[in-house]
């Protein structure tokens, strides 16, 4: 089994998990397991939220490589698929070249749900959550629209502003403005409910969950950095909300 193919397979699996919003301990574990199952000695892997390092020994020769993963999205389906491939390879169900080919196919795959469906999902989530927070039927439509604005503007701003927290801040500000407009023209709506619904798509759920899981797995650096990411998102949403509320005064 050639060391290059093992290295390529491991790094492809690792970077795909990390890029799709997986935990760093899962990245390290997957790479280590694949390399060990391929018969490599002295396997060591290390991942932070932005980089992957893998090193092992093959027939007396050391191999080490590092890959940066600057751009990250959330695609849990990809993580599940990669997990599945690594599990099948480790249990001996498929060969290494088959695993590599499958991983390449997964890498090329488009997200399961098209863009419009995700925006509709954001709107639905916002509307349902605002009603859950005590809104009336009247609040449903406006808060769904505000949530849709937040999600749409986040996708639009991401294209030319490469700063996650500023993107989130601007999206929250726009969503808040939509809520503010609705409340100005229809005073029977509740500002609090609309804002709560509008900000829901920005809730850093994946960052919080990953941070906790990394901390529990003993990956302290990754856990703390993910936690800071979640906190900064929360702060940018809070500041945007404060600005909107200041307009209301």
């Amino acid at each position, binding site marked *: 089994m050639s060391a290059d193919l093992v290295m390529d397979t491991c790094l492809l699996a690792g970077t795909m998990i990390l890029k799709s919003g997986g935990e760093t301990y899962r990245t390290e574990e997957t790479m280590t397991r694949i390399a060990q199952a391929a018969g490599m000695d002295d396997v060591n892997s290390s991942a932070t939220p932005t980089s992957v390092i893998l090193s092992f020994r093959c027939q007396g020769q050391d191999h080490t490589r590092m890959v940066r993963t600057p751009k990250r999205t959330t695609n849990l389906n990809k*993580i*599940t*698929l990669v997990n599945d491939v690594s599990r099948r390879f480790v249990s001996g169900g498929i060969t290494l070249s088959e695993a590599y080919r499958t991983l390449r196919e997964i890498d090329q795959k488009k997200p*399961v749900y098209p863009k419009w469906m*995700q925006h509709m999902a954001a709107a639905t*989530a916002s509307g349902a*959550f605002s009603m859950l927070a005590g809104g009336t039927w009247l609040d449903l439509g406006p808060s769904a629209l505000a949530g849709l604005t937040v999600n749409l503007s986040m996708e639009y701003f991401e294209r030319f502003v490469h700063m996650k927290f500023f993107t989130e801040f601007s999206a929250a500000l726009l969503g808040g403005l939509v809520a503010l407009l609705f409340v100005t023209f229809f005073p029977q709506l509740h500002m609090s409910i609309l804002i709560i619904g509008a900000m829901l798509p920005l809730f850093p759920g994946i960052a919080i969950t990953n941070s906790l899981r990394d901390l*529990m797995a003993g990956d302290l650096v990754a856990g703390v950095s993910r936690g800071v990411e979640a906190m900064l998102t929360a702060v940018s949403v809070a500041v945007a909300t404060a600005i909107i509320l200041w307009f209301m005064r």
Partner: protein
Amino acid sequence: MLIKGLALSLISSTAWCILFNVPVRTILAGGMAGMVGWLVFSFLPMLGAEVLLSTLVSASVVSLLSQLLSVLLRVPSTNFSVAGVIPLVPGSLAYKSMLAFVNNDYVGGITLATQTLLVAGAIASGLIFGISVLTIWKGARYAGKRTQRD
């Protein structure tokens, strides 16, 4: 009222599953996790529990349920737990806290912000609880296997 809450929590959790691109076969399970979490969350106050306790318990239930589902369906548990805790997010507390700060009511704002942080901490602790229980179970199974082999 209860039916409405259940339906709304199911819808919002399912929508979050789509937002996170979970596999199609786990989408309904994620929504169900959110619904069960909301059921526990709205049922406990009737027995006299405070917000913090009911958040902690329902987050633990969601986390345990997602660990169980992840073993059953053989997918990472993140697929369920992230969407499952969505109905528990302390949105109105956070909003009230910001409103108090904007209105120069700093003491009230800090009180509400502390409450928000505590509720967020309760969600986090609940999630950790589920992970820990699964780790103990896995560890016990592994140790059992090892003693058999020796």
